């Protein structure tokens, strides 16, 4: 991140941006963020170096590839699948994923009869431990407003057309329970390895706004 300043491991702003900033005025919002960070540092509430570590964690370590591992394991291992559906928090923790915004996990399974869709109409509740930071659309008004009332219209916007006979089950995350959709295993994927299967699992398929990639 701060290659030009290897002597400053605790640089509290990404230094690649620092040089850009020298050439132009900071926007009002950048000034607000800097002022707030400076204030909270000065008052002893935050360690700016911790912010760098947090950003790195959510940019490089904690994201939907974690959830994809959970899904692929459930597709390959019936016992794990049953455990995941019975006690998702423990089953997910057994793969080394736990904690912040994943303390109380529930996995919901798509079947030929039922398609699950997750939303947080009140804010942006999302299973960070397995999917990382939520995409902007998940936090946006159109998704939050429509997912509960017009799920088929929403799914169509995502390019997903479900059979009319499919029941849609919408989970509004209004408390601290976090939902992970276990998508249906793609047809023709019998010969794929767990890793290859994980590569078919998309973020959106674990929210319910998408389907996994095709095995072909």
């Amino acid at each position, binding site marked *: 991140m701060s290659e030009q300043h290897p002597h400053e491991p605790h640089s509290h702003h990404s230094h690649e941006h620092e040089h850009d900033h020298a050439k132009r005025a900071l926007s009002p919002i950048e000034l607000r963020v800097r002022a707030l960070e400076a204030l909270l540092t000065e008052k002893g509430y935050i360690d700016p170096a911790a912010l760098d570590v947090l950003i790195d964690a959510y940019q490089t370590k904690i994201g939907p590839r974690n959830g994809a591992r959970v899904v692929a394991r459930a597709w390959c291992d019936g016992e794990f699948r049953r455990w995941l559906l019975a006690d998702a928090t423990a089953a997910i923790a057994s793969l080394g994923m736990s904690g912040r915004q994943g303390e109380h996990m529930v996995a919901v399974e798509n079947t030929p009869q039922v398609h699950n869709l997750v939303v947080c109409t009140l804010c942006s509740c999302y299973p960070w431990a397995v999917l990382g930071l939520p995409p902007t659309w998940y936090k946006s008004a159109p998704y*939050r407003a429509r997912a509960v009332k017009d799920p088929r219209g929403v799914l169509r916007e995502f390019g997903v057309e479900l059979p009319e006979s499919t029941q849609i*089950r919408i989970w509004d995350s209004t408390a601290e329970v976090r939902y992970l959709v276990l998508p249906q295993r793609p047809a023709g994927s019998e010969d794929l390895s767990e890793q290859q299967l994980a590569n078919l699992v998309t973020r959106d398929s674990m929210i319910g706004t998408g389907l996994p990639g095709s095995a072909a």
Partner: protein
Amino acid sequence: MSYQSNADLGGQDVRDAILMEPEGDLFHAPWEPRVMALVVAMGPTGLSNIDMNRAARETIPNYRDLSYYEVWLTALEKLVLQQGVLGDAPPAPKQVLRAELVAAAISKGSAFSRTPAGPARYALGQRVRTIAVQPAHHTRLPAYARGKAGIVERVHGAHVFPDTNARGLGENPQWLYTVAFDEKELWGEQNPKQRSTISVDAFEPYLEPA
């Protein structure tokens, strides 16, 4: 005393397109990751709790005009002022998240389950009705699911109660249930048929026997 949440969007008539986003696109401005990290790092200080944060966000008058990280920033600024950080005696942080503690803090998280004060009032499969109350404070029962009959589908144990926690009145643990509603119960016969069932996670005080 009135309380207006500008974040309770479920079922509202919002016609803008949903803007798709590839998996790797996490931030859209260089200041956004900083705001995300500031908010997360402030958690352990105990300056506010998650429910106070949500209350601070949803009461921003121009909530709908702001991007989500602008909402987070605005609410954090508000809380910092409210909690007297700029005053003569700023509250001492309970804990400061040091860089070397971040990984452990993330993987530990903070559980919201608590020992229940008494037995659960409702059982799996039971028919219940949500209260039709607009409280004068933060709550987690969305407007679209008020005064509606549904079925208890899951019982999650007792969790911290946002309605009191958001006001600094304590965790006041309450039983938490997943309550599922038929689409007709929520939207009436006029709404185009979706073949859908919608659930919310509802705390016991939000429910009455049906």
